């Protein structure tokens, strides 16, 4: 049913397509879709050319609604030859817009270019779009020993309100085992890569549905809810506590469980099960613990060097499709690594999201517990989120500590960026220290 809806939608779009915004022309579109984990990343390089009479400063990106629902992260940045270098990427502001005279079923995002595109000029930039839940397990239920096959649907043509002159598409799947894929003209398969294109001179809103059915045994770890509590103590510690509610979001497990096979043949059986999770904690993280509602979980390993601390945790049991677990990890960070002072105000500079790699988070609640008596609190974050304040009474508090609560849904590892909480502290650390020394 999903397939037919998608196809129908794409066809409707192509029917309704009318060359409305023709001022801009995409002279070259190069799309790479990474299907190597359960998070789908589409990295596109767009070369946009101004063919109209006026200077243009905004470019529209279009996604079908079905995809836009699952869009977790969207970033546009100037094109760089070496895609690997991620340092100091200046991203362009992106807004959701609803232009007039556009076909329904499409969501538009408007990218503001750094400077206006003069007549005849061209500009190249990269767009990274990250989707969750874009892969559908097919079959939906598998036995414990079966491999997991998933389905991915997209359009072979780049959906755009502009005319696209030259375009190409490549899909990267984790393994060379591809069950089936849509064959169009000029389709090539090279190992674990499927290539479509190049296609030339396609009108606006042209699309051609493609479906790829392939093996993906990477664990589909989804945190349905993650509550992070960051507690600042002026005694020299920042305590981070993370409560996870995890589910394996891949193909549902069916039939009988067996402990015999995974023990007899370690790597063959239960290939899609979540056996462990890796978290990259900040360097100098200390006092790490890993427990759940009924006590410590003894299966974890901690490795550390000067760059990072790597924590490998195993759930109490291997998680097969649809299985759940819940646990808490916590660690302390030295205060001087996270807390800075500027213009008489303190600010906490710490990463926003989970340190787990390749983890999708449905709902993230971040609680920043400030020292008692903090005032003049404000938050600087790289993206929009719900925000409110609470009070928490902790050790030896009289009136309770101010807590800044931030909530955001549908997060991917790309959201793990630094954010700042600024506050005025009632007394400086030096004062507190002298006070303690005096006693």
């Amino acid at each position, binding site marked *: 049913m999903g397939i037919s809806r998608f196809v129908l939608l794409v066809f409707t779009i192509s029917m309704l397509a009318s060359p409305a915004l023709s001022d801009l022309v995409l002279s070259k579109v190069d799309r790479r879709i990474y299907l190597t984990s359960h998070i789908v990343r589409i990295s596109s390089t767009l070369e946009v050319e101004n063919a109209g009479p006026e200077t243009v400063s905004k470019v529209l990106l279009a996604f079908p609604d079905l995809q836009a629902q699952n869009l977790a992260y969207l970033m546009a940045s100037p094109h760089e030859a070496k895609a690997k270098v991620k340092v100091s990427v200046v991203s362009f502001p992106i807004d959701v817009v609803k232009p007039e005279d556009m076909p329904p079923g499409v969501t538009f995002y408007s990218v503001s270019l750094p400077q206006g595109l003069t007549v005849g000029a061209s500009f190249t930039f990269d767009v990274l779009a990250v989707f969750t839940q874009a892969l559908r397990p097919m079959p939906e239920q598998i036995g414990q020993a079966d491999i997991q096959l998933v389905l991915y649907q997209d359009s072979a043509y780049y959906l755009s309100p502009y005319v696209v002159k030259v375009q190409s598409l490549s899909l990267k799947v984790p393994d060379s085992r591809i069950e089936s894929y849509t064959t169009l003209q000029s389709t090539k398969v090279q190992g674990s890569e499927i290539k479509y294109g190049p296609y030339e001179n396609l009108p606006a809103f042209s699309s051609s549905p493609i479906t790829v059915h392939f093996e993906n045994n990477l664990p589909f770890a989804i945190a349905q809810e993650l509550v992070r509590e960051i507690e600042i103590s002026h005694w020299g510690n920042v305590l981070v506590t993370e409560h996870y509610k995890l589910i394996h979001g891949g193909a549902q497990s069916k039939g*009988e*469980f067996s402990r*015999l096979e995974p023990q007899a043949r370690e790597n063959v059986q239960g290939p899609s099960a979540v056996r462990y999770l890796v978290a990259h904690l900040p360097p100098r993280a200390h006092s790490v613990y890993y427990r759940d509602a009924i*006590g410590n979980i003894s299966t974890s390993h901690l490795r550390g060097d000067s760059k990072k601390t790597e924590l490998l945790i195993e759930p*109490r049991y291997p998680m097969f499709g649809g*299985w759940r677990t819940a646990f808490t990890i916590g660690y302390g960070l030295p205060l001087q690594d996270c807390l800075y002072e500027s213009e008489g105000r303190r600010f906490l500079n710490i990463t926003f999201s989970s340190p787990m790699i390749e983890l999708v988070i449905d709902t993230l609640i971040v609680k920043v517990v400030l020292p008692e008596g903090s005032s003049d609190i404000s938050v600087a974050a790289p993206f929009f989120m719900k925000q409110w304040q609470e009070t928490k009474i902790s050790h030896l508090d009289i009136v309770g500590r101010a807590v800044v609560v931030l909530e955001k849904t549908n997060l991917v590892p790309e959201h793990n960026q630094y954010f700042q909480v600024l506050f005025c502290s009632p007394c400086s650390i030096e004062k507190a220290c002298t006070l303690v020394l005096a006693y």
Partner: protein
Amino acid sequence: MATMPASASDLLKSFKLKTKQQELLIRVSILCLVYILAFITRLFSVLRYESMIHEFDPYFNYRTTLYLTENGFYDFWNWFDYESWYPLGRIVGGTLYPGLMVTAVLIYRILRFLRFAVHIREVCVLTAPFFASNTTLVAYFFGKEIWDSGAGLVAAILIAVCPGYISRSVAGSYDNEGVAIFALLFTFYVFVKAVNTGSLAWSLASAFGYFYMVSAWGGYVFIINLIPLYVLVLLITGRYSMRLYVAYNCMYILGMLLAMQIRFVGFQHVQSGEHMAAMGVFFLMQVFYFLDWVKHMLSDTKLFQAFLRITVTSAVAVGGIALGLGMVSGYISPWTGRFYSLLDPTYAKDHIPIIASVSEHQPTAWSSFMFDFHILLFLFPAGLYFCFKRLSDATIFIVMYGLTSMYFAGVMVRLILVATPAVCLISAIAVSATVKNLTVLLRSKNKVVQTGSTKGSGGSKSSSKALLDQSQPFQKNGAIALLFGAFYLLSRYATHCTWVTSEAYSSPSIVLAARGAHGNRVIFDDYREAYFWLRQNTPQDAKVMSWWDYGYQITAMGNRTVIVDNNTWNNTHIATVGRAMSSYEDEAIEIIRSLDVDYVLVVFGGVTGYSSDDINKFLWMVRIGGGVFPVIKEPDYLVNGEYRVDKGAAPKMLNCLMYKLCYYRFGEMMTEYGKPPGYDRARGVEIGNKDVKLEHLEEAFTTSNWIVRIYRVKPPNNRW
């Protein structure tokens, strides 16, 4: 300049304490150290494992405490727990001793009020060590009351590390006994104090101590029988006094009224056979003192004799008739099985298999006496000797407490706990008296030596001192040797206690630890793995059937409904589960469906060699099941009078549900190098039925070391 040192020395002089103050200081500091020692020696379990609740019953206590913190006292009092004993449920508020939970919550509230943001689990884990520390203080005062402060100090030290007490009060052992021993000793101490002083205030305190004990543990029956017995002995030996009258009457009346406030106890004090002794002694005492008063008033002996005869006859007749009527009409319930099994150790074995099946209800082996008491076992008779030598109301009490509790300790392993304070106190008297005698001997000799040297052979010495002088060198050496011997023994005791605490009594029994092939520590966390799996991956209302041992843990950690649990109040229900486990699968599935069971959980040690698993407990399932349902016959499972699982096992054994669930697919498993597949390491045999097929159940989960196996009950097949 010259005055400075003088003033400094004055200052020093003013700090210098008198001997009595010095003694007080030393005593207080020793007590403080003992207090801390008693607490930290019980933290081995936290250091070795983690801050967690231990064993079986503490999980129920923890769950109820959690409920109490979350819902408040009235909801707790009225709690109907539908998550256990499905489909019957359990009225929790009316079937538990709330003292422990209320205490823990009170500590928790106080700490919260003082702004210590502790979790209730930490409070529960540390409740028992905290109360053990308090017990040492009570032991000190008790020892001081019955002997002297030296004996009190020794008693405090002995009880602080005594393994018999530590076994039930390590951190995490969140059980009724943890606070109850404190309450027990406190009640006894205050009662003895009341008898010694005749003070109404002390007897009031003992009534409240008794109330706390009743609220905390079923062992209060020991108090309500021991104290009347003691009173009776005092009456018979002619040691009665007004002090005793005040102490007992106040304690009994108020204690009884207060105890009735506990719902689980209710009107038992006037209705049950176990409490009748106290009431009988109460009435006897009234008659006795009335007669005493009459005797005092009447000068004519003959008249009094006649009066005595009439009064005693009528009192005995009235008492006998009342008791008889009460028993016949059912108003007074007869003694319970548990009480009988205490008086007659063989009773439970013949009549109540469910009591006999519990390992802590077994008669005590000699080795466990040695293990739990060590040198106290030898000091105990010595202490009794000293007590008899200096007989007083207080020493009579401790002697009676020691002898009766020793008897009960011999009947049941778990009652070593009750005997421990008495043994510690009596041993402390022995140690203290011996050491005191020896040191007095040493010191007096020194004095004699000094006086002898200064005064020479002055004729003012009495002949006895001259005698002492003569035997002086031998006695002195002997005393020194004996002192060293005593200290050596005490140091052995300390090492033994520490060793026992760290090796034997600090295991939570949820997490199992073993030594690996390379001497490293291997942890089997299978129980929690399974319970957490249940909690996360089964429907919220799933019903789990297992043997009753795991009931409390499944409800507390797995948060799922169980059929039977460790509160063994309904024998028939447990027998039904036992019957299901010991029937063939197609018969068992009828019982399982009738109980609306979704999952069946078994514990299996064949892979790891864990011996307290369900196959080894299977005989009790058969016996308890067979006790109610005669279709289960024990001989069907036996071959030459023993349970076997190998090829020589009885056919019914090889095909019963428990066997199938434990050994499902085990026949394909290699457990040990050089042994055939399906080699059961717990029993050291190759299993007899390797081709186990299940028809109505399917494997849902097995933990990493196979210790817990969970099966899902398949829905019935469609008929067409």
